[in-house]
């Protein structure tokens, strides 16, 4: 129970909620108000009554902790009851009960849709008032949970059951309670910031409320979970069916989706080594995770088809494809597909969520490839840049894909080697779930970016080519990501900054170094990354990428999450494939945070490629760099072609330009960037479907 409730109760001398519950009663009718007040007192509540809504609002604003519940009449002369209801809900997040003499369904409906937790008809009977305290408790409970779960959840999703995080929940849609989701997000953010909580702990500070033991799957916990799963289950068994086959189309690797064969709850639990966590908790979480992966896979397959087409207009448009990006998972196998909220990110169709989720799992690639190559992460940040504007889709998938790729435990580990602080952290399975944690905050900021997106961001970061001008990259990233500009090589170092910064866009200038590193990149896990990457990209329409690159850059695939609602041009991530290419050295470390940040920032920018352009340019650069050099160029090539087609769809100029840019291996990142920027400018047409800069990014990639 909220302490203030307790306080209120305590104030009455009895800490026995609901006795002493503090109610604010508002009704312009003096008779009703008097009767109501007395009825409430009879129920042993502490009542404050006023006949003016403005006074009530003022009292609430002065100190929202003064009250536990508000009861208000609907028809009032100074302010409409619904308006008061909304304001209270938004500003104070208190339960509000509506009262009216009018019981017409439509009016009641209006009350509920405005967020009233109950609607009583006059004359109010005391029996009804005796139960209103439930609303207070219910809200406390759910708020608490949602805060905890927010890391994974989609923004507007109403709090779900405990230990639930919605994998790529695509709900970000209209919150049923206008301000509340955002509020929760805010809360969540703050939670994120100082997140340290024991994920498995339940915050039982409400003695009077019935508590069910719940495990809160915080980012930390989830990360551990994913790490454990990755560690255990990397296997070539397929968890998902379809996507996999489709994925293979794009990837040379078929390690698309690995079933965590060995990842049984018991063993996961052992590995996680979290006290107070039970096998059952893990089992149910695992189940959800699998569903999540499956969903990604499904999207991936869907996307794959689209991507395959490439020509398709805007395959990128649909971030849905990302869902199918399960491929990432596949390859990232250990996948830290953790909550890929990227999915969530994508999901929230908040406008302007240009969350470019670059599913460039490039990072992942880098990771596997071993330290040497690891420079891959670079682009995570870049990825972020890619703004994928997911047209209104909540394609968390992208993010997911990204995330997953990021999550790749492997990647993480590699990155760890790299030293990039964040990235490795992020990527490491154990470390924040795919860097989500960091990204989360930023991610969440944009509705599109659910915490999961963090993962994506990671990927994004990874994508960042550790290109030269770290600063450049940084700039690209928009800031939101906190571009940690670090050279690819420096990826790691920069990365470290990332996590903390939340999304420092580590846009490592991918470019030049890409090539250098790319090679190594591709060699090892590259494929994985590529795959992942491509997977991620493919599915999403947004990304043109995912061309069969082997790059397993699952994580790498920075997901560029473009705001769904805007037809932003997303960076054609297709090129992300190339990013995935080993060539791409993404500073993985940067990924997570960068991505997140980037993502965030990206989402901020409704413009489609605003950052994207910059990023995109980068990405492109990267892509091209990698593309040209990377072995798995195929993907890239396809990507380009795809891009071309996309370009066609979008603005001709842009993509084409990109392509050309990309094709030249020498294309410096900067060049790409420039072109990207140009593209963006032109862009209105560009990728209108795709919305994307991303598009071009894809090319780059």
């Amino acid at each position, binding site marked *: 129970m909220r302490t203030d409730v307790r306080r209120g109760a305590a104030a009455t001398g009895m800490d026995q909620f609901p006795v002493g519950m503090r109610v604010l009663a508002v009704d312009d009718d*003096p*008779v*009703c108000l008097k009767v109501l007040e007395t009825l409430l007192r009879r129920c042993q509540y502490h009542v404050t009554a006023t006949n003016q809504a403005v006074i009530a609002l003022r009292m609430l604003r002065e100190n929202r902790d003064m009250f536990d519940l508000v009861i208000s009449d609907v028809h009032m002369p100074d302010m409409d009851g619904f308006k008061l209801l909304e304001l209270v809900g938004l500003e104070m997040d208190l339960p509000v009960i509506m009262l*009216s*003499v009018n019981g017409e369904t439509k009016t009641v409906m209006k009350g509920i849709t405005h967020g009233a937790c109950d609607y009583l008809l006059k004359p109010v009977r005391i029996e009804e008032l005796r139960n209103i305290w439930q609303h207070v408790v219910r809200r406390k409970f759910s708020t608490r949970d949602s805060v905890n779960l927010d890391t994974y959840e989609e923004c507007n999703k109403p709090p779900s059951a405990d230990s639930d995080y919605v994998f790529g929940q695509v709900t970000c849609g209209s919150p049923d309670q206008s301000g509340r989701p955002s509020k929760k997000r805010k809360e969540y953010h703050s939670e994120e910031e100082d997140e340290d909580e024991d994920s498995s702990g339940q915050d039982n500070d409400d003695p009077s409320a019935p508590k069910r033991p719940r495990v809160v799957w915080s980012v930390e916990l989830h990360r551990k979970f994913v790490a454990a799963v990755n560690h255990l289950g990397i296997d070539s068994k397929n968890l998902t069916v379809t996507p996999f086959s489709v994925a293979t189309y794009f990837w040379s690797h078929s390690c698309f989706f690995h079933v965590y064969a060995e990842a049984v709850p018991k063993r996961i639990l052992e590995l996680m080594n979290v006290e107070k966590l039970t096998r059952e908790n893990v089992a149910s979480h695992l189940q959800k995770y699998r569903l999540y992966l499956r969903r990604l896979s499904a999207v991936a397959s869907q996307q794959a088809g689209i991507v395959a087409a490439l020509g398709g207009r805007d395959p990128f448009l649909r971030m849905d494809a990302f869902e199918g990006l399960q491929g990432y998972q596949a390859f990232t196998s250990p996948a830290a597909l953790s909550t890929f909220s990227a999915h969530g990110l994508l999901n929230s169709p908040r406008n302007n969520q240009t969350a470019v989720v670059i599913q460039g799992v490039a990072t992942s690639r880098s990771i596997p490839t071993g330290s040497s190559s690891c420079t891959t992460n670079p682009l995570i940040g870049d990825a972020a840049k890619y703004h994928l504007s997911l047209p209104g889709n909540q394609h968390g998938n992208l993010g997911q894909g990204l995330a997953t790729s990021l999550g790749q435990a492997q990647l993480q580990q590699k990155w760890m080697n790299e030293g990039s602080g964040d990235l490795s952290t992020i990527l490491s399975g154990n470390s924040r779930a795919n860097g989500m944690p960091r990204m989360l905050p930023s991610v969440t900021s944009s509705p599109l970016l659910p915490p999961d997106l963090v993962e994506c961001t990671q990927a994004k970061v990874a994508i960042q080519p550790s290109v030269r001008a770290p600063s450049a990259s940084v700039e690209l990233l928009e800031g939101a990501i906190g571009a940690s500009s670090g050279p690819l090589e420096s990826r790691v170092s920069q990365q470290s900054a990332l996590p903390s910064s939340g999304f420092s866009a580590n846009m490592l200038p991918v470019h030049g170094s890409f090539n250098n590193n790319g090679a190594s990149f591709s060699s090892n896990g590259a494929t994985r990354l590529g795959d992942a990457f491509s997977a991620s990209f493919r599915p999403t329409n947004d990304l043109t990428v995912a061309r069969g690159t082997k790059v397993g850059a699952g994580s790498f695939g920075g997901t560029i999450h473009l705001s769904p609602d805007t037809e932003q041009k997303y960076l054609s991530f297709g090129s992300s494939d190339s990013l995935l290419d080993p060539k791409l050295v993404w500073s993985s470390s940067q990924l997570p945070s960068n991505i997140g940040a980037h993502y965030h920032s990206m989402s901020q920018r409704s413009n489609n490629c605003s950052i994207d352009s910059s990023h995109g340019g980068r990405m492109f650069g990267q892509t091209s760099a990698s593309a040209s050099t990377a072995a798995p160029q195929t993907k890239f090539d396809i990507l380009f072609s795809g891009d071309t087609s996309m370009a066609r769809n979008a603005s001709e100029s842009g993509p084409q330009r990109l392509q050309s840019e990309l094709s030249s291996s020498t294309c410096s990142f900067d060049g790409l960037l420039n072109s990207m920027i140009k593209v963006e400018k032109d862009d209105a047409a560009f990728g209108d479907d795709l919305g994307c800069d991303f598009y071009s990014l894809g090319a780059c990639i």
Partner: protein
Amino acid sequence: MDYSNLRRQAASLKKGLFDQGHLDEQFRQVEDLQDEASPNFVEEVVVVFFKDSGRLISNLEQALEKYPRDFNRWDAYMQQLKGSCSSIGASRMKNECMSFRDNCGQRSVEGCMGSLQKLKREHAILRQKLESYFQLLRQVGPAGAATRPAM
């Protein structure tokens, strides 16, 4: 002073109000809220009610003149009054309120006028009866018992 007689009268008066439909169950709920903490609660509420309803009715009359055929406005006024009536249990008045609102819905000025007149009449009747009732109560009540002159 025949308290028992007075009490009987008061009881009878109240019963009549219920039987005739002037008051409904809600009034009993209001009476239930009266306790040692608020010994005159019912009377206080009733006083407030008549004061407020008098004001609302007069506003409504003015609105009928000032905003001819402004049914929405009239309806809004009436809704307020209806809320008061239902809170106190003034059943007949409430019914007239509803009938007035129906007439607004049908956009019948005459219907509205007619309902308003009936409403005013019910209002007057209820007021008078309740005033008598409370007077009786005051007489039989502890305070009244001692000091009030016999009615």
